[in-house]
């Protein structure tokens, strides 16, 4: 058995002949992101081998036949500095928490709305906590909440560790449905959540044994995986969810009270999950007299159109371009990422980099800014093509391997292929919006408000979304960024038990649209590809 030595972590592991370096890393419990799950397509699992001359090789495509030493990029620092947003808009509601306590004769009874769930020694009536958990495909956000006061005591952010195995939802469903994939995914998630629970408890100076309830807001696939349920049926037509939500599951894998339970909010469909239900609750979409479209811009663009209480929902596979994946110089929103970009009246460019240093790559918000500005200033035509360098009003167009690219620095640039990826991603979301408008028989002009949810969306600007045509021009001046409503809606579910049945009833009435199978979608999508 050859030995694989991981240089910067001082770990080594013995693996069977012919194992890949990626497999070795997983056995050694070393974090090595492989968003495409070892298909060799994303290029993000770059490593360097001591024995090889090559600058780098892909860990998933490199097999081990003899002892090797592997050099990894240190991703931990990058992940720690990632920008994830915890807060989201909310609304005012009365406290009617799911757990109360009663002290009598030296013991405290823990009471759920269904009855007594346990007894604790002494008087613990002042310590009743819950956690709102936002399980994103890429990121996790947890908020510790005092159930007596509604106050948020601590928040933690982390990468969803499952993305090391498979980045996008479909690859993850695929991973979950083979061998012991689902156990691996569930265990890694619980491990990360326990770490976050420990940190929050420390920050808030509380005993994690006094956490009695968690609300899991997340897309449908993430909830399946969190509960250890095979998500296979989500990835095959007719795309059926095994979960309907508005139910409780066991929390015994988490370091919380032994009496604790996890609440899963109502799920809308296979591709519109409880995170959107929480978002609908937090933004009170159903209670508004106007017309609002609520869009979670991300890998899965989930969206809801609400007109005077009538709701329609859909989701679109935008792909990982918005997270900097599949983009030549793409990276996550971490130190060194270009996050803002603009071109002024004199056609001079300016940009900002997270952490203030030299640009190492471009993150999602930077990518949308950059492309939006290049479209606005005519460097990229309506058909998505770079114009000829000699005709460009803005400096930066040049040749890379004979093909036109826009250079911000020598190392950071945008290629024609990258622009095509962005067109596909924004086209997916735009066509989803158009399909919803058609469903409710209305025009973009009739929409009063546009709410962009999600932590990624929070870093975007209305102008670049309009320049890109990700949003219709008629949405101008109507856009607001509402933040992580999956989290704030989850908190509302914790703090007022009435919302559960109310939302379950509402979810039943939402029109669910499955785009790939709907009439005329191809035309909508192709039309939405242009700028």
């Amino acid at each position, binding site marked *: 058995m050859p030995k694989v030595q991981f240089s910067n972590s001082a770990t080594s592991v013995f693996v069977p002949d012919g194992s890949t370096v990626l497999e070795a890393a997983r056995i050694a419990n070393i974090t090595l992101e492989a968003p495409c799950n070892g298909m060799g397509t994303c290029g993000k699992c770059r490593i360097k081998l001591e024995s090889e001359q090559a600058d780098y090789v892909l860990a998933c495509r490199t097999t081990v036949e003899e002892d090797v030493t592997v050099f990894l990029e240190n991703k931990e620092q990058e992940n720690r500095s990632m920008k994830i947003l915890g807060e989201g808009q909310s609304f005012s509601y009365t406290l009617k928490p799911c757990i109360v306590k009663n002290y009598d004769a030296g013991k405290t009874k823990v009471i759920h709305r269904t009855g007594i769930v346990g007894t604790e020694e002494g008087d613990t009536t002042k310590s009743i906590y819950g956690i709102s958990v936002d399980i994103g495909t890429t990121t996790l956000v947890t908020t510790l909440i005092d159930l007596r006061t509604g106050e948020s005591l601590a928040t933690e952010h982390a990468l969803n560790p499952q993305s090391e195995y498979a980045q996008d939802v479909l690859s993850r469903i695929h991973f979950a449905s083979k061998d012991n994939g689902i156990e691996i995914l569930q265990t890694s998630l619980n491990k990360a959540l326990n770490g976050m629970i420990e940190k929050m408890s420390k920050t808030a100076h509380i005993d994690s044994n006094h956490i009695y309830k968690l609300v899991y807001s997340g897309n449908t696939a993430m909830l399946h995986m969190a509960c250890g349920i095979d998500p296979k049926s989500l990835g*095959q037509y007719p795309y059926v969810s095994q979960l309907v939500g508005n139910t409780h599951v066991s929390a015994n894998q988490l370091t919380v009270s032994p009496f604790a339970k996890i609440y899963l909010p109502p799920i809308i469909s296979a591709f519109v999950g409880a995170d959107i239900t929480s978002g609908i609750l937090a933004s009170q979409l159903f209670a508004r007299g106007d017309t609002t479209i609520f869009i979670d811009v991300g890998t899965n663009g989930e969206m809801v159109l609400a007109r005077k209480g009538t709701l329609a929902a859909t989701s679109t596979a935008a792909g990982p371009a918005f997270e900097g994946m599949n983009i030549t110089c793409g990276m996550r929103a971490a130190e060194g990422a270009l996050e803002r970009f603009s071109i002024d009246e004199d056609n001079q460019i300016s940009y900002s980099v997270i952490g203030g240093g030299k640009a190492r790559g471009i993150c999602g918000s930077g990518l949308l800014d950059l492309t939006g500005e290049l479209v606005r200033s005519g460097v990229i035509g309506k058909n998505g093509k770079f114009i000829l360098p000699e005709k460009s009003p803005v400096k930066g167009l040049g040749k890379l391997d004979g093909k036109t690219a826009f250079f911000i620095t020598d190392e950071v640039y945008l290629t*024609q292929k990258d622009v095509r990826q962005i067109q596909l991603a924004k086209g997916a979301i735009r066509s989803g919006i158009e399909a919803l408008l058609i469903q409710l028989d209305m025009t973009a002009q009739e929409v009063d408000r546009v709410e962009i949810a999600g932590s990624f969306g929070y870093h975007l600007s209305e102008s670049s979304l309009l320049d890109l045509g990700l949003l219709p021009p008629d949405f101008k001046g109507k856009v607001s960024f509402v933040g992580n409503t999956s989290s704030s809606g989850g908190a509302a579910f914790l703090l007022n038990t009435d919302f559960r049945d109310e939302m379950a009833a509402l979810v039943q009435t939402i029109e669910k649209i499955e785009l790939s199978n709907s009439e005329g979608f*191809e035309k909508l999508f192709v039309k939405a590809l242009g700028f």
Partner: protein
Amino acid sequence: MSRKENQKNLLFTALAQAIIDMEEESATAIAKEIVRADFSSLSAIEIGVSGGMEQVGLLYESGEYFIPDLLVCAEIAETAVSILLENAPKEPLKKACVVIGTVAGDTHDIGKNIVALFLEAAGYQVIDLGKDVSAQRFVEEAVTHHADVIAVSTLMTTTMGNIKDVIDLLVQENKRHLFTVIVGGKPLSEEFAKEIGADGYAECAIGAVRLVNKLLQIKSA
């Protein structure tokens, strides 16, 4: 070169260029002109239409053209082909027959539709089975139409495995040797095609045309 020969070449080249430049009216006019002059419809499709689409494919590969451009060009090519074939004489029209579809469990078919258009423009007879097509149906339709090629596509990682079912069924029914099987779609690769026992993989529409040309040539050689 005779004057007639010269005129023919000019018309074929002009037809190709009209398709590349997305000039529907001029493509239609040229196709009609070719029919009037009584030049071979087959050569017109081969040189004018297919040749033009080959260039369009190259422009796509280099990033110049994108999906909407491909669709516009393919539509014009289709119109030209139908004009050329309208009053076509009894010459053997088609090169070969391709049965194409999106695999069971998947309803995404935009990519598959583009491949079908390109194959048609290249002169192949294309039977499009649509989406969410079962292995059973692929095999039955291929047999019914005496197809030469079965082309299976998927967009989703989760339905990749279903492509293998088509090949397994062919093997099981002892029909694998009757058909050339090609696969395509976003999560697939050359390696995957090999792994499941397909004859080939193509990354894009024009790649699929080249692949079919190549595989059928090998087969007939």
